[in-house]
C-alpha cells in the first residue's frame, strides 16, 4: 500500500495569490493513498526540501507529490531531495499549479479548483509509480573517425592527444582529403599543403592513431559506448608494412595513361601509384581496373622492380571487426557534376574548369607545376571569367522536374573565388579577371577585407549578374551575361572560364547514415541533434559530426567543429560507465506476439527480436519470437508502445496505467 505525501508550494505569492493553497492541501488529504498533506512558502528552498525529507521519514512516505512550478524547473531538485531521504527518485510527481494554473487563471475559486484537479491527477499517477533504476553500460575506450580529411584528422588527433585509441578510416589510398588538393587558403593566402601535410604526418606518427586507408565501413551495430563495426579493407595489392614508398614501381609501370584523380583528371598517372608526394601512408596502390597482371595475368613488372617484395597480386579484400565507444562522421563533400549545366560548355571545352580543377592548375605540385596554362593548348590565359553559384542557391520548381542544383548556399565559393583571382593577379598581373555573382557573401574574420582587396587593389571586375551562355569559338570562350547593376548585356571573349560548382555531401554519406541510424536532411547533410545547442552531435547517442558532412563550411569552421566533436568524444570516453535513461520501453514477453511492428518505428534501433523458449502451462516448452529493448539505446519516446497491438510494450515512468489514471483523475 502506497503512503503518499502531498506538498503544496506557495511560491511566495506566485501561487498563493491566486490559488488557495491550504484548500488544495486539505482536499488532497481525502485522496486515496495520501497520508500527509501540507503547504509551505518555498518548497524548493533548503527549508522546504527539509520539510519534504523529514515528512518522508516521519510518515513513512512511499511517494511524493509536489504541487509547485513546472517539472522543467524543479523536478530534478525534488528527485534529488527525496533520494536523499531514501526514496526512489521516480516516486515523485509534480503538479504544475504555477505555469498551468496560478499564472494563467485570474479567479481564485476557479484556480483553486483547477489546482485540485491537477494535484489529484499527480496523486493518481504516483500511486501507480514504481521505483526505477537506471542501468549502466561500460564504455569501450576507442573511437572511430570516418573520413581522413582535415575534419577527420583534427578530430582523430585531438582524441588521440587525450590518450584514447582512434581508428581513422579513409576510403582513398591516402589521408589528406580535399584540403591536400588546394593551393592556398583564404584569407591569409598561406599554402594549404604547408598546413595540412604536417597534420598528416602528425596523424601518421601518433601512436594512438591507426590509419585504415583504402578502407570503408561495411557494417555497424551496437549502441553508444559499445559499437561493433566491420571495416572493409580494400585490397591494394601492396603490403603496407613492406612498401617503403620509393616509387620505383610507379616509374616502371607500363600503364601510364590513367586519369589522375588527385589532379582532377587533368593529367595521368601510372596504374600502380602513390596519389601524391606527401601521401600518408606513403605506400603504393595498384588500381585493379587497369592492372595487366590482375586482368590478363601478364606483366608483373612492379613485382620485379620492388626491392622490398611488397607486391602481392593475390591480395583480397579483408574485413576487420572492432569495438568502439564513439563514432565521428567526417565524410566531407564533393563538387556537383557540372556537365548538366550545358550552357556553360563544360563538356564542350577543356578550358571551362571547375574551381577545384583550377586549384590544381595553380598548385605548384599540380599538373602544370604551378604555371597557369590552359588545358586545351597549354597557353597562358589572359582573360578569365568566374561564374558563381553554379548549382547553388537554386530555387526549384517541382512542377518542372527534378532540380539540377541545390537550394542552399555552398558558403565557401565567394571567398575562394576572391582568393583564386588574387593569386592569379599576383602571378600574372597582366590578366583580366571577371567574376559573375548573385551576391558576394563574406561574413568571417578578415573576409570582407580580403574580398575588397580583390576588387580595389587587384582590379578584379565583379559583375552582379548571371551568365546566360558560354560558347567555344576559335579557341576562345564567348561569355554572354548580364550586368544587373548597369542593366545591360555583357560579352566577354575569355580564355578560360571557372565554375564555382556547388558542393554536395559525399555520396558515401547516405548509406553510412543508414548504417549508423542517424538522420539526414533532404540534401543528404547529416542532421545535428540540436541546430543551436548540440551542433556536433547527431541525434543518435555516441555518433558525432565533424566538417562538411553536416553542412557547408570553410576550413577554420571545419577545424573548430572537428575539435568540438573530439571534445564530445573525449567526454564520453572518459566516463567509467554510462547511465541509461530510466524511463525506457520494456516488453511483456508473455504478451508479445512477435509481429515486429515496434522494431520499424523505433528511431534508435533499440528493439531487436529473439527466439526465446517459454514454459507453457502444460509443462511443455515453446519457442516464441519476442521483442527485446536495449535499455542503453532507448530514449523513451514511446512510439513502440502505441504501435504494439497487444499492449505488450509499455513505457516505464509513463505507463499505460499511469497515464490512464491521470485521465480518470482529471475526468472525475
Amino acid at each position: 500500500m502506497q503512503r503518499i505525501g502531498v506538498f503544496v508550494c506557495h511560491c511566495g505569492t506566485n501561487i498563493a495569490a491566486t490559488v488557495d493553497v491550504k484548500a488544495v492541501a486539505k482536499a488532497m488529504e481525502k485522496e486515496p493513498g495520501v497520508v500527509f498533506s501540507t503547504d509551505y512558502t518555498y518548497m524548493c528552498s533548503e527549508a522546504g526540501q527539509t520539510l519534504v525529507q523529514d515528512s518522508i521519514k516521519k510518515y513513512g512516505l512511499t511517494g511524493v507529490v509536489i504541487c509547485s512550478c513546472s517539472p522543467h524547473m524543479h523536478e530534478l531538485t525534488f528527485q534529488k531531495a527525496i533520494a536523499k531521504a531514501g526514496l526512489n527518485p521516480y516516486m515523485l510527481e509534480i503538479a504544475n499549479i504555477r505555469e498551468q494554473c496560478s499564472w494563467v487563471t485570474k479567479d481564485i475559486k476557479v484556480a483553486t479548483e483547477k489546482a485540485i484537479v491537477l494535484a489529484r491527477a499527480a496523486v493518481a499517477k504516483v500511486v501507480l509509480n514504481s521505483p526505477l533504476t537506471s542501468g549502466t553500460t561500460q564504455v569501450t575506450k576507442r573511437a572511430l573517425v570516418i573520413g581522413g580529411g582535415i575534419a577527420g584528422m583534427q578530430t582523430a588527433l585531438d582524441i588521440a592527444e587525450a590518450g584514447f585509441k582512434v581508428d581513422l578510416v579513409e576510403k582513398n589510398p591516402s589521408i589528406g582529403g580535399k584540403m591536400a588538393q588546394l593551393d592556398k587558403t583564404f584569407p591569409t593566402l598561406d599554402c594549404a599543403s604547408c598546413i595540412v601535410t604536417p597534420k598528416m604526418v602528425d596523424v601518421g606518427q601518433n601512436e594512438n592513431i591507426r590509419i585504415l586507408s583504402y578502407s570503408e565501413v561495411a557494417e555497424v551495430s551496437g549502441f553508444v559506448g559499445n559499437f561493433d563495426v566491420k571495416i572493409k579493407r580494400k585490397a591494394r595489392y601492396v603490403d603496407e608494412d613492406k612498401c617503403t614508398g620509393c616509387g620505383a614501381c610507379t616509374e616502371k609501370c607500363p600503364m601510364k595513361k590513367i586519369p589522375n584523380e588527385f589532379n582532377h583528371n587533368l593529367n595521368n598517372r601510372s596504374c600502380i601509384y602513390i596519389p601524391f608526394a606527401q601521401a600518408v601512408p606513403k605506400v603504393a596502390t595498384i588500381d585493379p581496373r587497369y592492372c595487366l597482371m590482375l586482368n590478363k595475368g601478364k606483366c608483373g613488372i612492379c613485382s620485379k622492380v620492388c626491392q622490398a617484395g611488397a607486391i602481392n597480386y593475390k591480395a583480397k579484400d579483408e574485413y576487420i571487426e572492432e569495438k568502439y565507444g564513439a563514432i565521428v562522421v567526417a565524410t566531407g563533400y564533393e563538387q556537383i557534376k557540372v556537365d548538366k549545366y550545358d550552357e556553360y560548355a563544360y563538356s564542350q571545352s577543356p578550358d571551362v574548369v571547375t574551381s577545384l580543377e583550377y586549384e590544381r592548375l595553380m598548385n605548384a605540385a599540380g599538373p602544370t607545376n604551378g604555371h597557369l596554362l590552359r588545358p586545351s593548348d597549354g597557353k597562358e590565359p589572359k582573360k578569365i571569367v568566374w561564374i558563381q553559384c553554379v548549382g547553388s542557391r537554386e530555387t526549384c520548381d517541382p512542377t518542372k522536374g527534378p532540380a539540377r542544383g541545390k537550394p542552399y548556399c555552398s558558403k565557401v565559393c565567394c571567398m575562394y573565388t576572391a582568393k583564386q583571382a588574387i593569386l592569379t593577379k599576383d602571378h600574372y598581373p597582366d590578366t583580366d579577371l571577371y567574376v559573375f555573382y548573385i551576391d558576394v557573401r563574406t561574413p568571417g574574420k578578415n573576409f570582407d577585407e580580403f574580398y575588397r582587396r580583390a576588387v580595389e587593389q587587384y582590379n578584379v571586375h565583379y559583375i552582379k549578374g548571371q551568365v546566360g551562355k558560354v560558347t567555344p569559338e576559335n579557341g576562345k570562350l564567348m561569355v554572354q551575361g548580364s550586368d544587373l547593376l548597369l542593366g545591360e548585356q555583357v560579352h566577354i571573349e575569355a580564355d578560360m572560364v571557372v565554375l564555382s560548382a556547388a558542393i554536395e555531401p559525399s555520396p558515401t554519406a547516405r548509406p553510412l547514415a543508414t548504417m549508423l541510424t542517424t538522420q539526414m536532411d533532404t540534401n543528404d547533410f547529416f542532421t545535428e541533434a540540436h541546430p543551436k545547442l548540440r551542433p556536433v552531435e547527431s541525434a543518435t547517442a555516441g555518433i558525432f559530426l565533424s566538417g562538411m558532412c553536416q553542412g557547408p563550411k570553410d576550413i577554420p569552421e571545419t577545424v573548430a567543429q572537428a575539435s568540438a566533436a573530439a571534445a564530445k568524444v573525449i567526454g564520453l570516453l572518459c566516463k567509467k560507465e554510462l547511465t541509461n535513461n530510466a524511463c525506457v520501453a520494456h516488453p511483456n514477453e508473455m504478451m508479445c506476439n512477435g509481429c515486429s511492428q515496434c522494431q520499424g518505428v523505433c528511431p534508435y534501433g533499440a528493439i531487436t527480436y529473439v527466439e526465446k523458449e517459454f514454459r507453457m502451462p502444460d509443462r511443455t516448452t515453446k519457442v516464441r519470437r519476442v521483442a527485446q529493448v536495449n535499455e542503453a539505446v532507448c530514449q523513451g519516446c514511446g512510439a513502440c508502445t502505441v504501435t504494439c497491438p497487444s499492449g505488450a510494450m509499455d513505457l516505464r515512468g509513463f505507463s499505460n496505467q499511469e497515464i490512464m489514471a491521470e485521465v480518470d483523475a482529471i475526468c472525475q
Partner: protein
Amino acid sequence: MSVNENKEWKPLIVAFCCNWCSYSGADTAGNNRASYPDNVKIIRVPCSCRINPLFILRAFQRGADGVLVMGCHPGDCHYTTGNYHTRRRMTLLFSMLNYLGVESARTRVEWVSAAEGARFAEVVTDFTKTIEELGENRRLEDLRCKTN
C-alpha cells in the same frame, strides 16, 4: 450515482502535451501570464507518439468533452520522428471517429513549440470555444462514469 441537473455544464478538455515542445509551450504561456480557460487540463507525455488512441477514448468515456493532442512541429520532434507517427495515427483515428458519427471537432492535433506561449493560449482558447458551441459529449460517453 446521482445526476445533478442544476449544475451548469462546463466543458472538460484533456490536453496531451509532449514534454519537449508543447508542455514547454504551456510553461511559456504561464511565464507570459497569458490567461486561457481553466477547462483545459494537461497530461504530460514524453512525446506525442506516446499518446495511445486508447487514452483518447478513455478520456471521452470518463466524461471529457474534447481532447487535444499536442506535439512539436513536424521536423522538430525531440525524438526526430515521433510526431510524424502521431500525425498519421491521429488522422486515421479522428477520421474513424468522424465516420462513426462522433463530431470530429471534439478532437484536434496542434503543433506548438516551446516558444509559442501565445499560440498555446490561443489554441486552447479557440478549442474551448469550439467545444462550448458543440455542447456536451453524448456520443462517446459512458453513462456510468458521469457523476454529478
